[in-house]
Every structure is written in structure tokens, then in C-alpha cells.
């Protein structure tokens, strides 16, 4: 049985590698019973989308380097 700590670690790894069938099942069972982890699971892809959006933003105006400083 997964606890929340282990479940959230697996959810994080799911962002970086495909989970095995057993891992997916164990997570499914856990999130059915645990609303906190179910929220966590939805927030990881949201974090990824935010990071990508953030990385594409223009730097704020006035934050341009001035050339006389090295």
C-alpha cells in the first residue's frame, strides 16, 4: 500500500518516465481514497505548463543589460 509520501514521489516520476502497470494501479487506488494526493496529481502537469509559459515570457522592460557593465 502506498502512503502519501511514496504516492507523490511516484507522481513526480510519472512526469519524467512512463510508470509500470503496477505503479499506475497502486497510484489509482491511492488517489481514489486520498483527495489531497488527487489534487497533487493534477497540479504537477499544471506546474509544467506554468514553467513553460514562464520561460517563454519576455524579460520585463528596463531589465535589459546596459553595455557599459561587464
Amino acid at each position, binding site marked *: 500500500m502506498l502512503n502519501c509520501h511514496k504516492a507523490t514521489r511516484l507522481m*513526480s*516520476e510519472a512526469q*519524467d518516465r512512463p510508470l509500470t502497470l503496477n505503479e499506475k494501479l497502486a497510484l489509482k487506488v491511492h488517489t481514489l481514497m486520498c483527495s489531497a494526493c488527487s489534487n*497533487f496529481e493534477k*497540479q*504537477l502537469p499544471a506546474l*509544467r505548463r506554468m514553467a*513553460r509559459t514562464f*520561460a517563454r515570457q519576455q524579460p520585463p522592460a528596463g531589465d535589459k*543589460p546596459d553595455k557599459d557593465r561587464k
Partner: protein
Amino acid sequence: MTQDSVPKDTHPTGPAHDALMSDELRLQMLKFATLQLRDSHLAEDAVQEALLGAFRHAQAFAGRAAYKTWVFAILKNKIADLLRKNQRLVNISSLTRTEDDGLEEALFNQRGMWQRDERPVAWSSPEGSAEDSQFWRIFEACLDDLPPNQGRVFMMREFVGLESRDICAELEIGVSNLNVLLYRARLRLRECLENKWYLDGDCRC
């Protein structure tokens, strides 16, 4: 060093050229460098030097992904040099530290369940925050608060979209080490956003 010295007509076509000229790539690099150096001037210099260095060998790269990995490798080395020069980075071995700072112990109890008042809440329309400049200031502050190695791998993975194996090869760390760093970065960033935005500032509607 100026952009004028880029020999723009040497390799006019090909994926490496497209990637080199991509504004998106440059902005990603600039964010990556600025967050680590905490100095926009140093960051701009480092990015320009990395792009110039990469350009000299651009034709050796068949694909955009390989080029991107490589140009970030150059940038990472420049950043490491600059940080060492400024004596902000103690030694290179610190790159492999996972920075166990007690966050997990604070969030979970001894049975590995969420502490009562740390349980993640449902976020109201996470994508709806994207237009709000205050949200992005908080997002940047939360990123800035990540321990350096966690911030570094998080940015390589999520800003740049590098694959785990490329990050491991680049930083010379094992995949389990990387997974721990990424987990802690996500855990901390999520916690910070929830505390500073979703619980605090979200309901001005």
C-alpha cells in the same frame, strides 16, 4: 562581445541554424542564467557567449534537440565558471547534493501521510492565473527560493524540456538522484504557490 560578430551567413539553413536563431531558445537560456546568476547583465553575457561558442560548431548538429542540449551544456559551464569566480559556488561536488532540507519531514508525518494543514487543496483555475502579472511575480519568487540544485534541474527539465537521461549525463548524476531533486523542487514550488497564491491572493475576485 557583440552579436555583430556572429557570422550570420555562414550556415544559412538547417535545424541547428533555426534553433540558434530562435528567440524562444534565447529567452529560455536567459531565464535559466538569470535565475542562477541573479544578475541580468552577467546572464546576458553568458547567454551570448554560449550562443557564439555553439554557433562555431553548429553544423556538427543534425537535430534541434541535440543542439539545444549542447548549447545549454555550454551555458551551464559558463554559469558555473561565473559562480565560481564570484565565490558563490563552493565546489563542483555540490552539484550532486540533493539538498535535503527537512521539507519532506515537515509536510508528511511518520506514517508518510500529509500533515493535516499541509494537505494540497484544489487550485481554482490554475490556467486562469496566466494573465495575471502578480501571479508571475510570485511564481518567480517561488522559483528563486528553490535550493540551487533543485532549481537547476527543475529548469533544465521544465523550462528547457531536456530529457532525464540528458540531464543526468550533463550533471553526471544518477537517475535516482535526479528524481529526488525534481521531486523536492516540485514539492517545494507547489507548496510555495499554494501558500502565496492559491490560499492567499487568489480570492480578490
